[in-house]
């Protein structure tokens, strides 16, 4: 259980303890977010070097197939991001057909990018996602994929939405924590 943060004890970390549903959601993080990872995201996501998706594609896909799930969804980016960056950084890692981003969307474009908000501001943001299609989630075990797990806000909002719409379980998978 918890967010996949690397730590020495087995209790939920401080971030996780803040969340009311901390008993049911858990996230798997493949790597620790360090300087090298920071540089990777600078080049891949912010500079927009889409080729760099290949660096972690195999690792990510392997982690996906290891899960016992019915459906894979990657956390969507805003329409504005799609128009400027031209790709969803999470979808880039996954094999064709593995993810179904279009099922839900990030409704409003963000006034302030996530990375520029402080922790408190991030925790208070309202639900940013909505389902775009009536989709059968009832009884399904969903794997929700994102790039970086920071406070868990994004993940938990998306997970809550999927649970409200009938998902049986939602598990998070992120490249870094």
């Amino acid at each position, binding site marked *: 259980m918890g967010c996949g943060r690397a730590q020495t004890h087995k209790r939920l970390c401080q971030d996780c303890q803040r969340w009311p549903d901390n008993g049911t959601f858990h996230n798997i993080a493949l790597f620790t977010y360090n300087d090298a990872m920071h540089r990777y995201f600078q080049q891949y996501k912010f*500079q927009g070097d*889409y080729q760099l998706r290949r660096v972690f594609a195999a690792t990510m896909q392997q982690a996906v197939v290891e899960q016992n799930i019915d459906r894979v969804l990657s956390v969507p980016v805003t329409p504005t991001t799609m128009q400027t960056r031209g790709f969803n950084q999470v979808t880039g890692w996954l094999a064709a057909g593995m993810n179904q981003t279009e099922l839900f969307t990030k409704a409003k474009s963000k006034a302030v990018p996530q990375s520029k908000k402080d922790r408190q501001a991030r925790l208070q943001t309202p639900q940013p996602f909505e389902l775009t299609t009536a989709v059968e989630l009832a009884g399904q075990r969903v794997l929700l994929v994102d790039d970086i797990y920071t406070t868990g806000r994004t993940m938990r909002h998306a997970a809550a939405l999927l649970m409200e719409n009938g998902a049986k379980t939602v598990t998070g998978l992120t490249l870094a924590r």
Partner: protein
Amino acid sequence: MDPRELYGRQVPLTASEAAMLPDNCKLPAMLVTKQLVQCLRCGSQLDRKKAQLPQQQFYCYQCLNLGRISTLTHLYHMPEPNDFPTRPACTWQGQLTEQQKACALTIRENFEARKRHLLWAVTGAGKTEMLFPGITWALAQGWRIALASPRVDVCLELAPRLQAAFADAKIAVLHGRNPEPYQYRQHTICTTHQLLRFREAFDVLIIDEVDAFPFAANPRLAYAVKHAVKADGALLYLTATPSQALQKQVHRGELGISYLPLRFHQHLLPTIKVKLQPNWQQLLRRGQLPRCLVWKLQFYLDKHQRFLLFVPRVKQLAPVQAAIQHYFPELAGLTVHSTDAERLEKVQQMRDQKIQYLVTTTILERGVTFPGIDVIVLGADDEIFSTAALVQIAGRVGRSKERSTGLVWFICASHDRNIKRAQRQIALVNRKGRRLLRATLSPLSTAHS
């Protein structure tokens, strides 16, 4: 944004940045056909697969660090109107030698005729000063000019000198490490990489150290030069060691050429002496140096002669230094390489004459002068030393009026092609230098007879 910032530029803008601009300054950023995916900023023809974004979009992976170009963006450009309110004058007070004056005149004439020209000026000829009359003339015409170099350190060295020589001009200095925003200026100093952001901007474009890495090996930079200068603009290449490619252009008549074969103090270049020593590496592994080198070091110790000892690889620095210290513990010197954290301090100690020698890799080849030194290259036949690098290394010697000669000594296992080419280049300019000396001296000798 201020539309003047688009004069002669080509920059990708976001929709909001471009909102107030007229529609006719919008250009496509990429060319995509069935056969071809090409970036229209850097000219790269891209691998279709590598350049692919989702939903049939493409991006350029070659010029990313200037901000990404893709089919989702446009380039914005306005034609260069030469909208400069003042005409800055030259405030330099120095004097040119007769030969420098002749070269400066040729440069000015080539600017005026808007020609493409190569100036082959030997190391230590004082080529920056020779540009001043031509630049002064061009600025007075209201022309837009740029001085570009492939190397940031060359730009950083040139900028204060040019700014001092044209005190009233505000010179734009553009390179990757400069955080200041771009401003429209009549006079620009920049890295050749930055030229990718210009389109038909300059009436005069000067490329300094044209053969320095990475210009020679990078086709994008040649594209940048071609497109940054106006279609009828003048282009001047400056070099001490022209590449084969440039020499070919001269032979084909695409490029004019003039020579400055004498240094500012009117002396020839020191020639390269080669000593074959096939087993120097084996000796070094045993902690020894070739006997010829040991004798030379003994001589340097006795005469207090300062020197640079070049080696091909960073990993050879420590064993060579250990061997020198084994033979001559009283000889004071240090090792230094490009990523050495104490590089600047060590070079300064050599400048201040606190140490007698430096053991170093290629990094000191350009732009660093220590008056009165000798130069030894151990392993000059290593592939890491290009012809240009060897000529530049040799050019460290004889830079001062007080000691206009000195030893350039290559110790190597074989007399390889790059060494021969370097010797040929030096022989060629020295032949021209001798002719020039005879020509300037002969009127005097007839006057005496």
